[in-house]
């Protein structure tokens, strides 16, 4: 073989670990061929239960692989080790120089009679979830459906969560005497059970299913303890087994899995195994982080290195059904002489156990339930000296971490690596740290620690608003709120420098408006406004403006539609339906704006605030009123929300939507706050965005009634308005919020900071003080006088503005760009 011919690496399996290996070797000299049994591209199986939130595969998809031959839907059916050839199901043969087995695992299904009946599923792939959904939708039980999950471990609780998301009340059946027996001890599991049972789960521990039978459309399960459950769906998630059905004549580990050495190499030196199908020195791991570590090892070996598997950190931190659970190190205190320090606060709903060595000097492990915020600080200390203060009940965890402590266990990144990157100036924020060290790109639980390390390294991220204020927007908000200052001049004289600019003036104007300081074009505020707010319309490229009257929820009478049509016709305005279910009229000059609005206000319209950093629209689908599938009145709620929050000035624009059922026709999860109807009430999602960086909104509360929903939205919006940066949408704000969604929930649902009453009062004041801005202009000759193109020739049209016709409407003539010398 000529030297220049690249060697071929065949990877069997396109799961998360196989995908990771190919990603690492993408730019190497290897020619890479991947066999994937599923026809889908690789996806994030760890986040599988979140598929139920959107039923959108793309949300789970991993970054597409480049630089390899990806054979999707091609199962590898045999390997001829003598000829070094892998054969695919289609008959295709690929010769290899190196072969990596990354076949993953298969669900373990206990031999319960009836386990193959229709309605019984496993929980492993996106297709499994689609099948479970089909079973649930076909069930004819009135009210909530009933399901059983066999297995109360990590995977079982994930499956139960997925069922809940489909409107099923799950029974969780676990053979061991407690939930999550591998990760959590008895005390922690007791609390976990109490917390999840509040969420419509029924937990049966210390028992198993003895039979499943079909009874008409129902499934009847009998448990070993004598209970009989009437069910619509059964899900097996009692663990996984390494998948080794591809027989290569290689030795397997004692509990299954292709047996490999510390270099992840099988007895055949050309063949490696990684991930859940591998038994490294006899031990198989069912977690993704050790799988990633194996991928790193093999990539290094294939690049001529000599790395070996460092041993796995099987620590876990996760949120199951909204409950924090973390387990690390020797969680069950199996080390000889190990001591336990337990703080079990049943009132607060938190449990923590630290396991230390017999001399109480070395941290060995621990379990946290209910609040796992200490996990990022504690886990790196395993095996290290434990600060005495930590052993005091209720001690705050704030300890210096040794340099070799692993901060990111998904990618085995140490504190040293991170601080080196920061000190060398390679990374100055979390995003850059993620890019250059990969820390924080796995499960993300170490992101707060990354922020802390940045601060410790002396990285100060300036959040000064602009050259005139050293304060952030949030700080200015608090200053203005506390000092009750009402003018920009007074504020900048006391707290800033200079005369202000196009950044701080509109930002302060927005804060003043959020705090209720009268009309935004009042004497001292008008000069602060950007042109859109100053003319209460949207500036277009030719210097004209567009006009959007409010159409709450997108519902409009024929009479009002006619008025819009007549106004557009009479003023020669171009009309277009917006994405927010209203109508935009383009091409109005500043002189025309008051005349147009006089007609609109007389017909009962009011400002739509399309020009403002404020609530835009609340989109809706037609809901139960018309739709055969709707489960709630989405239009009614959308109108109620739009009328409640109209005119609310915020750091950036706010968009919302209400969908009347899980089909989500109103696209609520792309909104700052989106509501989706359930059979029991409403689910509230926050932090969604379309735009430049699309983001699906996160579920904040579920199955709440309208009153509770509005209370939570009130608090959420006011908390955002108080704390966000200028022009920071809720999506970016939420991403950057310390503690993320959990913290947000603690603040606006659990009222951990004790500010909810204040937030609600602020919103109540906004609602009661609302007045239509355009009516305010029409009723005030002072303000009206500002709407002139030329102060010395009122009513004279601007000679630079001209129109041409396109598809039957007027559109602007492209302007010449004069005298720009570049």
């Amino acid at each position, binding site marked *: 073989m000529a030297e220049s011919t690249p060697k071929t690496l065949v990877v069997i399996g396109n799961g998360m670990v196989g995908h990771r290996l190919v990603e690492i070797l993408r730019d190497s000299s290897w020619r890479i061929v991947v066999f994937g049994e599923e026809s889908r591209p690789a996806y994030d199986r760890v986040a599988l239960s979140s598929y139920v939130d959107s039923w959108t595969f793309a949300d789970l998809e991993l970054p597409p692989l480049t630089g390899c031959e990806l054979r999707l839907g091609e199962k590898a059916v045999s390997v001829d080790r003598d000829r070094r050839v892998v054969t695919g199901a289609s008959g295709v043969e690929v010769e290899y120089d190196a072969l990596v087995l990354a076949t993953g695992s298969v669900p373990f299904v206990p031999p319960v009679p009836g386990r193959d009946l229709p309605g019984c599923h496993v929980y492993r792939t996106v297709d499994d979830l689609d099948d479970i959904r089909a079973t649930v939708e076909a069930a004819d039980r009135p009210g909530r459906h009933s399901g059983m999950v066999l297995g109360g471990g990590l995977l079982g609780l994930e499956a139960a969560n997925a069922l809940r998301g489909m409107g099923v009340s799950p029974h969780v059946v676990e053979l061991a005497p407690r939930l999550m027996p591998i990760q959590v001890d008895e005390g922690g599991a007791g609390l976990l059970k109490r917390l999840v049972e509040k969420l419509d789960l029924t937990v049966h521990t210390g028992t198993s299913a003895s039979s499943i039978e079909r009874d008409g459309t129902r499934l009847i399960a009998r448990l070993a303890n004598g209970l009989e459950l009437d069910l619509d769906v059964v899900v097996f998630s009692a663990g996984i087994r390494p998948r080794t059905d591809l027989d290569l004549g290689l030795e397997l580990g004692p509990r299954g899995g292709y047996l490999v050495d510390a270099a992840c190499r099988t007895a055949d030196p050309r063949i490696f195994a990684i991930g859940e199908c591998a038994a490294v020195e006899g031990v198989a791991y069912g977690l993704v982080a050790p799988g990633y570590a194996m991928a790193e090892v093999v990539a290094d070996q294939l690049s001529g290195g000599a790395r070996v598997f460092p041993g796995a950190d099987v620590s876990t931190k996760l949120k199951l059904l909204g409950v924090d659970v973390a387990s690390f190190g020797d969680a069950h205190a199996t080390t000889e002489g190990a001591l336990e320090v337990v703080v079990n606060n049943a009132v607060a709903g938190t449990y923590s156990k630290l396991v230390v060595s017999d001399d109480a000097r070395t941290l060995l492990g621990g379990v946290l339930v209910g609040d796992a915020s200490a996990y990022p600080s504690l886990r790196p200390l395993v095996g290290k000296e434990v600060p005495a203060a930590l052993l005091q009940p209720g001690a705050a965890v704030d300890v210096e971490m040794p340099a070799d402590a692993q901060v990111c266990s998904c990618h085995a990144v140490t504190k040293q690596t991170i601080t080196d990157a920061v000190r060398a100036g390679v990374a100055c924020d979390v995003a850059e740290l993620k890019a250059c060290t990969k820390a924080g790109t796995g499960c993300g639980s170490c992101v707060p620690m990354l922020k802390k390390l940045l601060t410790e390294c002396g990285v100060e991220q300036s959040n000064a608003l602009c*050259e*005139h204020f050293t304060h952030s927007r949030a700080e200015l908000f608090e200053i203005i709120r506390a000092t009750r200052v009402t003018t920009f*001049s007074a504020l900048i004289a006391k707290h800033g420098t*200079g*005369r*202000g*600019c*196009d950044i*701080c*003036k*509109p930002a302060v104007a927005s804060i003043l408006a959020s705090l209720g300081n009268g009309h935004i074009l009042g004497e001292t505020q*008008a*000069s*602060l*406004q*950007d*042109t859109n707010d*100053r*003319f209460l319309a949207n*500036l277009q*490229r*030719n*210097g004209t403006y567009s006009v959007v009257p409010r159409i709450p929820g997108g519902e409009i009478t024929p009479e009002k539609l006619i008025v819009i049509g007549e106004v557009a016709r009479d003023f020669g305005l171009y009309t277009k339906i917006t994405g927010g279910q209203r109508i935009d009229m383009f091409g109005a000059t500043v002189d025309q704006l008051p005349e147009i609005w006089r007609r609109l206000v007389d017909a009962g319209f009011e400002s739509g605030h399309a020009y403002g950093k404020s609530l835009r629209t609340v989109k809706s689908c037609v809901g139960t009123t018309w739709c055969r599938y709707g489960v709630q009145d989405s239009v009614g709620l959308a109108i109620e929300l739009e009328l409640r929050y109209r005119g609310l000035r915020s750091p950036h624009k706010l968009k919302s939507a209400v969908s009347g059922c899980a089909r989500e026709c109103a696209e609520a999860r792309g909104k700052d706050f989106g509501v989706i109807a359930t059979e029991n009430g409403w689910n509230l999602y926050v932090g969604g965005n379309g735009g430049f960086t699309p983001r699906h909104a996160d579920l904040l509360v579920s199955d709440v009634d309208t009153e509770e929903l509005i209370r939570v939205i009130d608090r959420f919006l006011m908390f955002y308005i108080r704390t966000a940066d200028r022009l920071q949408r809720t999506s970016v704000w939420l991403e950057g919020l310390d503690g993320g969604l959990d913290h947000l929930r603690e603040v606006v649902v659990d009222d951990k900071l004790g500010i909810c009453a204040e937030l609600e009062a602020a919103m109540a004041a906004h609602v009661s003080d609302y007045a239509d801005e355009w009516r305010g202009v029409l009723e005030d000759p002072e303000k009206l006088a*500002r709407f002139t*193109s*030329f*102060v*010395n*020739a009122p009513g*004279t049209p*601007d*000679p*630079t*503005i001209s129109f041409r016709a396109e598809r039957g409407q007027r559109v602007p003539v492209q*302007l*010449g*760009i*004069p*005298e*720009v*010398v*570049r």
Partner: protein
Amino acid sequence: MTVVCDFEVLRPEQGVAALLPDGSQVAVFLTADGSLHALDNIDPFSGAAVLSRGIVGDRGGVPVVVSPVYKQAFELATGKCLDEPSVSVAVHRVRVRDGVVELT
């Protein structure tokens, strides 16, 4: 000479536009310290006649108006664009006589 408006019509840091007999347009600004400035109203980056509707403030202490279209800052005293030094807008002479603002 073109009459713009009575001086008392002007508000500090809120521009107005005036039409000249030849059809061209001028943006007139009163700053907080009481000085008057007049620039071409056409924003050279967009071609739209909108500079009078920009936010007035300062950059590093230099009084500026910021175009409402693509946000470039123009020095009120010289018309120079601070974001792209090769670009500038024409400056007009403006005065107040008998309480009336005039372009000369």
